[in-house]
């Protein structure tokens, strides 16, 4: 059982979170803190338990033990957009909101993510990037104090992903929710987050502050040292010229 405490003013505080599936430990005693307005990236290989933590924070899955303090208004963006295909974009964003004042806020949010022109479109007609922007709008319109991002850029092409990085940063700067970004992309974490956590086999094995000023460049020398430590903590040797490629290779091996 997990004990939940919902406090809008406080950030996220997770203590001793455990979870096992069929006797296999997925999360072992995870402690995790996110200050209000802080942008935290959670890095790990596939199967390391990243998504399990995110789903527990979202209230989707129960944990076996531990306590979770999280703000009451939480919103999630998944890897797939998960828009209701039978609702137009505006109705998708407005889903579950109370009627009053909704219309204005929905349109405002759609404008913020650059989808004003697609408010009446069916989700099926949107591109991958547009769908994710609609999913972001659906999350943001709820004014979340905690925004949970589960590899939201994983299925996008490289150029679209870069645009989405800029968009997410801008939205975060405007609204300042606490953010937990689950990703296996070290560069993504370095570009976006205040802090990167490394999850290895269900335990948080590293906690790195990223202090470089935003907007950051991938080639920023300030990020170099952190990248090396993150990669080695993830079990990937540094020294390769293309760490991105190396890490994706190595992460795949780990899951076998």
């Amino acid at each position, binding site marked *: 059982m997990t004990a939940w405490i919902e406090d809008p003013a406080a950030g996220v505080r997770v203590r001793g979170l455990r979870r096992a599936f069929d006797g296999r430990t997925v999360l072992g005693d995870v402690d995790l803190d996110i200050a209000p307005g802080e942008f935290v990236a959670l890095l790990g290989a596939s199967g390391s338990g990243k998504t399990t933590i995110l789903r527990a924070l*979202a209230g989707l899955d129960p944990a076996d033990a531990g306590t979770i303090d999280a703000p009451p208004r939480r919103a999630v963006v998944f890897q797939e957009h*998960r828009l209701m*295909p039978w609702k137009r974009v505006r109705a998708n964003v407005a889903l*579950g909101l109370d009627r009053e004042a909704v219309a204005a806020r929905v349109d405002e949010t759609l404008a913020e993510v650059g989808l004003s022109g697609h408010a009446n479109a*069916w989700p099926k007609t949107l591109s991958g990037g547009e769908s994710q922007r609609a999913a972001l709008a659906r999350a943001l319109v*709820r004014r979340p104090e905690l925004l949970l991002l589960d590899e939201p850029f994983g299925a996008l092409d490289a150029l679209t992903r870069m645009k989405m990085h800029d968009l997410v940063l801008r939205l975060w700067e405007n609204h300042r929710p606490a953010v937990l970004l689950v990703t296996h992309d070290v560069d993504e974490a370095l570009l976006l987050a205040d802090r990167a956590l490394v999850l290895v086999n269900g335990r948080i094995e590293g906690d790195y502050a990223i202090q470089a000023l935003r907007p950051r460049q991938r080639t920023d020398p300030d990020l170099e040292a952190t990248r090396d430590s993150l990669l080695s903590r993830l079990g990937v040797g540094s020294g390769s010229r293309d760490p991105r490629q190396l890490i994706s290779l190595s992460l795949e091996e780990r899951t076998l």
Partner: protein
Amino acid sequence: MNASGATRSRALPVQARARRRHLKRFRRLLGPLSLLAIWALVTGLGVVSSEDLPSPWHTLHTARELISDGQLPSAMLISVRRVIIGLTIGTVAGVGLAVLASLGQLGDDLIDSSMQLLRTLPILAMVPLIVIWFGIGETPKVFIVALATAIPIYLNLYSGIRGTDRKLLDAARTLELSRLQIIRHVILPGAMAPFLVGLRYAAGIAWLVLVVSEQINATSGLGYLIVNAQNFLRTDIVVVGLVVFGILGLLTDAGVRALERRVLAWRST
């Protein structure tokens, strides 16, 4: 249509696309038209005697007579009414049972097994029982149509609801939708496509069982018109009845398809 076909037709200018649509519609008419031609030919050449099969013109003539003396319109009205009432009751029952069965384990255990049992039963075999229960008035006809149509609606909607995308359900939960809102905004719209397949199927079955029950124990309706004509060896009236059934069946199907286009607009485009 395959992917390359879709791309090609999208690339065509609007006029060419319209022409292609007309061509397709014409080609689809070709089949029934040639059947009609064969019918005219075999009856006109005397290959088949007019007692066995009247010619199209003879049939048309009989149809006019039946319309002007009011027999056909009143029989049609009675049959259409029975189908509409029976199908409506069947749909409501099928939807209600499917929703109840798919939303909780108790409902599932109680309802689904019985419905699965009922579906293996040839409904028409129940006609004698239904006559014993309800006699020969309107009730038995409407009852059998309702019973026969509830089953395909139930089966399709039930599997549609069961097949709801778990990922969308998760998303709905993160949006803090209530149970009722989830049913309304996620589960039912997602099950709409299978439901409409069931409805289309049910509409076909409705006509089928109605005709049979009208031929067994009725004094009115299209099925009765046909059986009665058979007693007087009026093949022409029998054929008129068949053609009318065909037309009514097509109209019903077109109606459901129009509904499908409207309700499932999000799928195309």
